């Protein structure tokens, strides 16, 4: 039945979000791409998921730089002293 096959060929949001993520790692097949494209045409929450997922990737990607320029935490003074002593002892 045409109705059934159309329904089966469209991703639900759970599948769509998985393929949104897979697309970052590998090239999707033509069927996967078509299904995802159709889903995204009609699904605003998943469209937002695409943008927000990219935002998360970007933030985590720059985490290292950011924590170097502007460390969020300070290594406690006692630990600094302890490490320095151990380094001195090792040299």
């Amino acid at each position, binding site marked *: 039945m045409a109705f059934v096959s159309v329904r089966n060929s469209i991703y639900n949001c759970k599948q769509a979000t998985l393929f949104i993520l897979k697309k970052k*790692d590998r090239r999707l097949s033509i069927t996967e791409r078509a299904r995802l494209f159709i889903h995204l045409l009609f699904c605003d*929450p998943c469209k937002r*998921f695409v943008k927000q*997922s990219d935002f*998360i990737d970007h933030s985590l990607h720059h985490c290292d730089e950011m924590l170097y320029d502007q*460390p969020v935490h300070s*290594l406690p003074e006692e630990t600094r002293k302890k*490490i320095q002593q*151990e380094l001195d002892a*090792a040299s």
Partner: protein
Amino acid sequence: MSNTLHPADWINLYGDYLYSLALLKTGNKEIAEDLVQDTFLAAFKAREGFKGISSEKTWLATILKNKIVDHYRKKDVLKNTGDYLAATDESFHDSFFTTGDKAGHWTPATAPKEWHTENADNPVNEREFYQILQYCIQKMPPKLVPVFLARFVDQENADEICKEFNISSSNYWVIIHRAKLLMRSCLEKNWFGA
């Protein structure tokens, strides 16, 4: 030109950086302190082997990264991951998606809302933002965390991660999918203030 090491400056230059990184990844102050200490000592012992190809900073960060992976291994965090994922499959699905006839769609509570990202573009708030990131990593089920960090913080690829943690490709995708859904919803709740 090759890079050189200056161990005398390490704690001042990289102490807070490595500590912040370790705390982001482990969420535990004592563990983070121990990891930083181990990193500096291991680096000092291995200093003869430093080839100067990467920067001092990158070299130290790589040592820390390996220490953190060892830490997960020692704690056996990823033991029985397959069983864990199978056992929690249904409850995870139900917490994010509809069930029944039209299964697999967002529920009104879980559907992504519009974010106002100027919050995160503002440098004044960056520190706070990274604290929220750290909080959201801590709130994730521990079995998801190592893979999530390897993929999104350390930028490793899927094959490397599957080998490193001895997991199948399908479990890798279940973990990445769950972790991303959880991280997104945690940020929406705690940062973008739905």
